[in-house]
Each structure stands twice: as structure tokens, then as C-alpha cells.
């Protein structure tokens, strides 16, 4: 176990480094730089360009830039955003909450609803419930999440005027206390619904297929032969065996939480990381992009590790080699 | 028949490094799975040597080494005095032509994607047997018919899963025959087959060794069958040969306690012949760092102090029959 964990950590670190180098290389190779943004529109002063390049060390050789950045990053300092001139870590920490709130809520809801539906469908295989929910899950699985978001806005926000269409809070009202949280909850309804709807199918399918698979395992036949009631077999044995893949999927979707909600954040103007990323790309804000990427890689690596460990704890069969 | 040893296996060993699990830490040193641990045997031309032993004792590993699908950790085998290691280095194709293997599971011996025709033609093409495809096709037809597989043309068109196990196993042997091998290893060739069809395979192997003078190594855990087919039998335990002799000697007059237990436990189909089974204590062993004493000692019903200290010597009896047990003459 220990060796396994160590090895996984090594892989994680390697991934982060490679991700990082890749990202750095891509950004440096790409046309455009943050200077354009810094100089502002309709400004072509070569002196200013040169002065800015010097100021941000962009005229140094790329390996030098890389190592110097890496060095500070290893010390836990992500540097300052070139555009906003604020610590990147601060910018990320301000945003990450919103993303996690959105992504986590949706992931949990989807996992719960999807798994329950999947189990129900598996138990009623071939019946109306199964056919309908499988069909629906296919359709939602095929739906671009941004489009679904737009359609939901069209119906629930502009059509029926029931729910706010953008943002996290009502800027005008600026509520406090319990009302503040109610307000956030209200703003969350549409984006969370969108995300949940597109996430449900994968849980549904994995739950359904693993229940079906486990149901056909030999040990279930044994339990039947023992005279155990179907209900008990399900609750005590099938469930525990079948829930494992869901755990993995949930873990993986946790890891990709930040990337997964990018489009939704843009559709709903949700003040999260996804938008920070898009802005940073457009502005070529190197430190911010690198910082986000680093955080993202690290969190994926960590979550994956945690998932593996949890999985190992749940499933005694796993051996570490 | 030539009297010189045709195949000689000299002190062959196959140790796999043992990965994982915590035991490794306790002892500190590297752990080995000694799948085959110093086996020396010889086979004459036209002779069938049977190898028996319980699951995991290294029978298949030995077979794989002899076909050079794996390189032994130690030792080598010689065909006509030439090292197989050298042979495969010099000309791998030629080596594989000389040594052929028939596997246990006929259902899995052929790629499910190709027709039998294609499968049979491949080695012919590889070895440039026959001038053109047409001639090769004829060779295949002839082979199939000789093996009792009729209508051959129809069988050539079929896919492996459309044939029965017995048919497949026969095709597997026929395919080996195309190359005129001098040494055939049959690794449990009938254990996956129905009783009613396996006789064909056994008879085919016997004919092969008799007619073509090929040496055959017959691996099986079915003792009765092994005795039936073999001239000699070697009994393996945890990677070592513990007893060797002519088939009748070993079966009727077993010397090693393990052989005795094995044979006594082997039920006969004759219901009247109720023998007293010799029980073996303990759980089946693993080949992980066995020794230093006799490997069978922990389960042996007549073990003594000497067995615990060092691996017993080979004790040779009449008729080339030998066993490694310190208690034999006492």
C-alpha cells in the first residue's frame, strides 16, 4: 500500500511537471502576448512594447523564464498577474469557491439522482421505467451543455421569468444573512440544473450496468440458492459491489470539476474559475494561466490519488503492485 | 532407434522475481518464485516422456522453456547436443521448426479472426513450404484428411469457433506436423476436451512419435492418461523432478512419498479397486523461496530431521528409475 501510494504520488508529480512544461511551451509558442492587452487598444508605441517586455522579463531566453518561474512556483508563489497586477493565488482563491460550489453541487446531485435512477432501471430492466430513463439519459448525454443552458435560460428566465439568468447574486439587492444564501441558491438553480442534467447519464449508465453485471455474478446465484430474499441480496451484496464504479466516476468528475464547468460558467456569467481561464487566455496573462493550470493539475493528481485510495479501501481485491 | 540422448535438459531453472506484498520487506533480500528449479531430464528419439505433478509445480513453465518462449534463468537444453539457446540465436525460424508445442486449450490456440484455412497456410508461407498458394492449399487439405477431419474443404472455410474442441486440437497438431518437428511438447493437450473425443488426440500423438520418431514431452495432471501414453514418467514437485522412471515403474512402484500420495489419490474408474488414500497435510505450497530442505518436507507424512536440512540426493534404482528422497532405502 505504501509503495503504491508513493508511486502514485510520483506519477502525480510527473504529470504536474509535464502538464506544466507543456503549458508553458504552448503559451510561449503561441502568437500574441500579454503586452497587447497591457498596451490597450489602438496603441502601437514600440517604445512602450519594449519597456513592458523588459519589465515582465519577456525578452529573456525562454529556458531562463521557465526555470525562474518554476523556482518561484516551487516555493509556493504563483507570482502576480501581469494584467491585474495582483497575486495569482489571490485571484484563484477568490474564484475557486464559486466553481466548487457550482460543480460540487451538480456532481453530488447528479451522482445521487443518476445512481438511484440507474439502480431502479437495472432492477426493472426492460420495463417502462428502464426504457424511458435509458432513452432520456442517452439524449441528455448527447446534449452540449452550453446549448442546454441557453435553452433553459430561454424557457425559465426570459420566457417564464421565474429565475435569474446570470451571476451568483442579485447585484441590485445586495442581500445579507439568510437572504444572501437564498439569493445564491436561486441563482444556482439554472446552472446547477444544466450541469446535473448532462452529468446524470454517466452515473445512470454506470450504476445500471454495474448492477446488472453484479446481478449476474456467480456469488449472487449462491445467495439465491441459500434462500436469501432478493431484497436482502440487493441491499447487502449487489449494492456494495455495484457502487464501486460510481465512486470512481465521481472521483474523476471531481478532478475535472474546474474544466467541466467552464462553458456553463460562461453561459451563466458565473464568477468562477472557468471564466478566469477564458479571460486569462484572451489576455495571455501568463502567470495567471500557469497558476490555474498548476492548481488544476495538482488538484487532479491529488483527487485521483484520493479516489484510488478510497477505492482500494472499499474494494479489498485491489492489490498494489 | 538411436540410443544416444536426443533431447537433454540440463539443470534448467526459471526463477521469476517476486513483486509486491509485504513479505519481501521482512526478509530483506530479493524473493524468487522458483517455478522450475534445476531440472535435468533426457528424451530419446521416438520416446514419450510424461510429466505429472500438481497444479503450479512448473510443468508448463518447463514446456515454455523447451520451446524457448522463455529464456531459462539457468541451465540449457540441448537437441542432438546443440544448445537451444544457440539455435534460437542463430536461426529462430529453424529452431521453431524443430521444436513444436501443442497447447492445453484448443479453443484458444487459433486467432478467432481467421479461417482455419488461413491459419493453416500461415506457417507454410512463413516456412516457404510448397511453391504457391495452391500447392499449400493442397497440403492443408491432405493434412486435414489424414487427421480425420472431413470434409476438409469445408473445414478450411470455417472459423475456429465453428469447430469442436477435439477437431481444433487435431488441427493444432496437424499444423505442428507441417513443419516436421523433431521434438514436440504437448502441454496438457486434452485437459479441456471431452472424454469421448480425447482418445483421438492421444492416439495421434502416439502415432506421431512412433511413425516419425519425434521425441514427445507429454505434460498432464491426469496420471492414468500419462501412464497410458508415456514410455517414461517424471513426477514434478515445486519446480523439481522428484521421481523418474518407466511409466509402469513409477505408477506401480512409486518410491517418493509425494508420488505415492499422488497415485493413491488418483481415483480409478474401477469402483471395486478401493485404495486407501494417503493424505497430505497442509495447504498446497507456493514456489516462493522454498527450501533449504526437501521441498516436500512440510507436507510429508514420513519426514525426518535430515529432510529438513538439505535437499535429498538422487537415489537410483534398477531400470533407470530414480527418486529424490532420503527415506527410500530405509
Amino acid at each position: 500500500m505504501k509503495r503504491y501510494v508513493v508511486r502514485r504520488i510520483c506519477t502525480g508529480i510527473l504529470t504536474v511537471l509535464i502538464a506544466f512544461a507543456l503549458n508553458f511551451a504552448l503559451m510561449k509558442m503561441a502568437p500574441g502576448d500579454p503586452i497587447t492587452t497591457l498596451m490597450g487598444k489602438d496603441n502601437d508605441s514600440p517604445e512602450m512594447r519594449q519597456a513592458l517586455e523588459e519589465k515582465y522579463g519577456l525578452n529573456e531566453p525562454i529556458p531562463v523564464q521557465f526555470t525562474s518561474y518554476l523556482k518561484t512556483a516551487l516555493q509556493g508563489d504563483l507570482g502576480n498577474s501581469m494584467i491585474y497586477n495582483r497575486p495569482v493565488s489571490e485571484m484563484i482563491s477568490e474564484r475557486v469557491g464559486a466553481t466548487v460550489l457550482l460543480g460540487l453541487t451538480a456532481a453530488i446531485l447528479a451522482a445521487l439522482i443518476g445512481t438511484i435512477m440507474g439502480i431502479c432501471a437495472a432492477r426493472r430492466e426492460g420495463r417502462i421505467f428502464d426504457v424511458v430513463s435509458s432513452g432520456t439519459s442517452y439524449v441528455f448525454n448527447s446534449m452540449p451543455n452550453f446549448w442546454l443552458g441557453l435553452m433553459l435560460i430561454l424557457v425559465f428566465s426570459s420566457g417564464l421569468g421565474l429565475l435569474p439568468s446570470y451571476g451568483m447574486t442579485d447585484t441590485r439587492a445586495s442581500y445579507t444573512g439568510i437572504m444572501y444564501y437564498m439569493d445564491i441558491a436561486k441563482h444556482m438553480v439554472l446552472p446547477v440544473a444544466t450541469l446535473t442534467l448532462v452529468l446524470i447519464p454517466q452515473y445512470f449508465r454506470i450504476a445500471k450496468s454495474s448492477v446488472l453485471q453484479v446481478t449476474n455474478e456467480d456469488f449472487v446465484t449462491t445467495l439465491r440458492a441459500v434462500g436469501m430474499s432478493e431484497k436482502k441480496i440487493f441491499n447487502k451484496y449487489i449494492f456494495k459491489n455495484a457502487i464501486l464504479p460510481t465512486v470512481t466516476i465521481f472521483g474523476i468528475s471531481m478532478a475535472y470539476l474546474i474544466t467541466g464547468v467552464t462553458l456553463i460558467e460562461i453561459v451563466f456569467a458565473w464568477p468562477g474559475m472557468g471564466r478566469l481561464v477564458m479571460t486569462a487566455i484572451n489576455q495571455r496573462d501568463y502567470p495567471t494561466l500557469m497558476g490555474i493550470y498548476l492548481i488544476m493539475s495538482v488538484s487532479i493528481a491529488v483527487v485521483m490519488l484520493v479516489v484510488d485510495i478510497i477505492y482500494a479501501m472499499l474494494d479489498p481485491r485491489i492489490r498494489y503492485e | 532407434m538411436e540410443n544416444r540422448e536426443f533431447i537433454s535438459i540440463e539443470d534448467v531453472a526459471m526463477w521469476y522475481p517476486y513483486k509486491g506484498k509485504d513479505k519481501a520487506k521482512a526478509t530483506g533480500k530479493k524473493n524468487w518464485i522458483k517455478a522450475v528449479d534445476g531440472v535435468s531430464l533426457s528424451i530419446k528419439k521416438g520416446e514419450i516422456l510424461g510429466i505429472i505433478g500438481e497444479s503450479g509445480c512448473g510443468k508448463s513453465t518447463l514446456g515454455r522453456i523447451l520451446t524457448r518462449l522463455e529464456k531459462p534463468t539457468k541451465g540449457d537444453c540441448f537437441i542432438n547436443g546443440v544448445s537451444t539457446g544457440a539455435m534460437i540465436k542463430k536461426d529462430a525460424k529453424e529452431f521453431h521448426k524443430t521444436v513444436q508445442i501443442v497447447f492445453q486449450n484448443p479453443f484458444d490456440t487459433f486467432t478467432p479472426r481467421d479461417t482455419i484455412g488461413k491459419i493453416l497456410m500461415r506457417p507454410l508461407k512463413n516456412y516457404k513450404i510448397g511453391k504457391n498458394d495452391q500447392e499449400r492449399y493442397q497440403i492443408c487439405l491432405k493434412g486435414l484428411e489424414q487427421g480425420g477431419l472431413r470434409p476438409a474443404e469445408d473445414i478450411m472455410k470455417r472459423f475456429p469457433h465453428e469447430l469442436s474442441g477435439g477437431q481444433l486440437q487435431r488441427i493444432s497438431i496437424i499444423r505442428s506436423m507441417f513443419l516436421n518437428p523433431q521434438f514436440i511438447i504437448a502441454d496438457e493437450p486434452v485437459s479441456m476436451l471431452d472424454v469421448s473425443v480425447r482418445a483421438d488426440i492421444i492416439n495421434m500423438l502416439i502415432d506421431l512419435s512412433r511413425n516419425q520418431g519425434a521425441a514427445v514431452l507429454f505434460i498432464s495432471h491426469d496420471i492414468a492418461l500419462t501412464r497410458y501414453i508415456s514410455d517414461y514418467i517424471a513426477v514434478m514437485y515445486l519446480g523439481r523432478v522428484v521421481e523418474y522412471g518407466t511409466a509402469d515403474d513409477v505408477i506401480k512402484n512409486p518410491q517418493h512419498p509425494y508420488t505415492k500420495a499422488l497415485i493413491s489419490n488418483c481415483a480409478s474408474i474401477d469402483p471395486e479397486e478401493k485404495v486407501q488414500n494417503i493424505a497430505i497435510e497442509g495447504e498446497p505450497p507456493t514456489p516462493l523461496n522454498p527450501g533449504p530442505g526437501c521441498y516436500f518436507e512440510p507436507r510429508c507424512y514420513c519426514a525426518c530431521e535430515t529432510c529438513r536440512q538439505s535437499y535429498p540426493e538422487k537415489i537410483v534404482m534398477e531400470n533407470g528409475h530414480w527418486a529424490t528422497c532420503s527415506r527410500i532405502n530405509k
Partner: protein
Amino acid sequence: MEKMKKICKTIKGDRQLLAGMIGIVILLALVILAPVVASENPHHYGKDILNSLGQNGHLLGTNHMGQDIYSMIIYGVRTSLRVAVISALISGVLGVLIGGVAGFFGGKVDTFVSELINVFMMLPSFFLILLIIALFGNSITNVMVVIGITTWPSNAKLMRAQALSLRQRTFVKSAEAMGETKLQILFKYILPNGIFPVIANTTMGMSNAILTEAGLSFLGLGDPSIISWGQMIYTGKQYITSAWWISAFAGIAIVITVLVFYLLGDGLNHVLNPKHLNRGAN
């Protein structure tokens, strides 16, 4: 002949596969027959702008540029299928080769490659695609290549697992014993026998490629010189309340196409599942 019959039978036997097959045939027909089926050239910027459904003979209306939405949807199939097929092909070929080599040769090669696969699996791929496309330009070729080279790891992983287990299979051992070379074995035995889960996965990958392309287009990173549903949604977004048909139908087209590939992939998964293919390997 018989083979064809059998294939037909398996297709008929699996409802999802059947639906997927019918879907894909229709889509392919649309690709070929687009000029016949479409009512006008989708690149024609006509006089009728923002026509609603059925107005002036525009079945699904027009957009602000005067392009016929129905025709655009029809021609959009070409783009989506092209993206799907080419990117999946790139991803499939890379995955199969890399995974196959790793699994078959094993040892150090495998350790190295599987670590590489692990690393690539953990990279946030949509993000990477986004970054590359945003930074390096959004031609459809870029999009296809980038999707292809960022999604191979899952294929490689599948292929590696297949190769690893196939390597132990008797027919591979027996091929080796029959004197076939490593390369022959890899291409004649390992790849053909191990490729089916990859094919199913690749089909699923096609759905994702279509969705990814749509997502990129939605962020304004689509190729402007082609007709793509993602871009229709993107431009239609401006008209979402006044001319909803621009983005709504494009979205439905995406849903249907992606659905077809999902059904196909799932169906293939059932049918090509190695469990159904091999006997005696239980």
C-alpha cells in the same frame, strides 16, 4: 455471404446498434446527398434575413446573413462527421499503436508508455484543446488534429490492456512457437483481436469530438470558413430571443448526431465485447 448475414443478424439483435446503424446511414446519405437534399447553397448570403420558419420557402428560417438554416444544418453534417471521423481516427491509430506496442512488448517499454498514458490521462484535455485552439488558431484541421492527439490515451489504455491479456493467450504463444516474428504477431494477432473495444471506444470518442468542436465554436473558436452547428449556436446566441431557430435547430442536430454515435458505440460495445467473441477463455 454468410458473414454478411451474420453481421446483419447481430445488428438486428441489438436495438441500440440497429438504431445507431440506421442513424449513421442516414447521416452518411446526408453527407453525400447534401447538395440534393439542401434547398440552397448554405454559403449563399441571400436577401431574406432573419426569416422565421417557413417564411419565403425557408423551411427552418434564415439567419441574419440570409443563409438558409435548413441547408446549413444539412451541410453541417459534413463538418461534424469530418471532425468526428478524422479526430477519432487519429486518436484511434495513435492509441492502438502506442497501447499495442506497450502491452505486447511489456517490460520497460510498457512501464514507460503506461506511465506516459497515466500522465496524459490526467491532463485536463478540454482545457488543453481550448488552449491550443485559442492560441494557435481555429482552423478545422487544427481542431481535428488537436482533438485527436489529446484523446488517444484512453484508446491506448484499452489497447494496452487488450495486448497485455492477448499476449498471454494461447494463440499468440502458439504463433510465436510457429516461428512468427514479433512484428507479425503484433499486426496479425494482437491488433486485430484487441482492436474491438478500441473501435467501440473510438465511436464514443466521435460523439465527444463533435461535442468538443461545438464547445469550441461556442467559445468563438470555430473555423469561420465552414458551416458548423457549434458556430450556428454561437452566432444564434445573439438572436436567441428574437430568432431562436438559428441556434435551437443546430443544437437539436448536434443532439441527434451525437446520439447516433453514442448508440452506435454502445451497440458496438455490446456486440464486439470480447466476452462474446471468444470461447474457452473464461
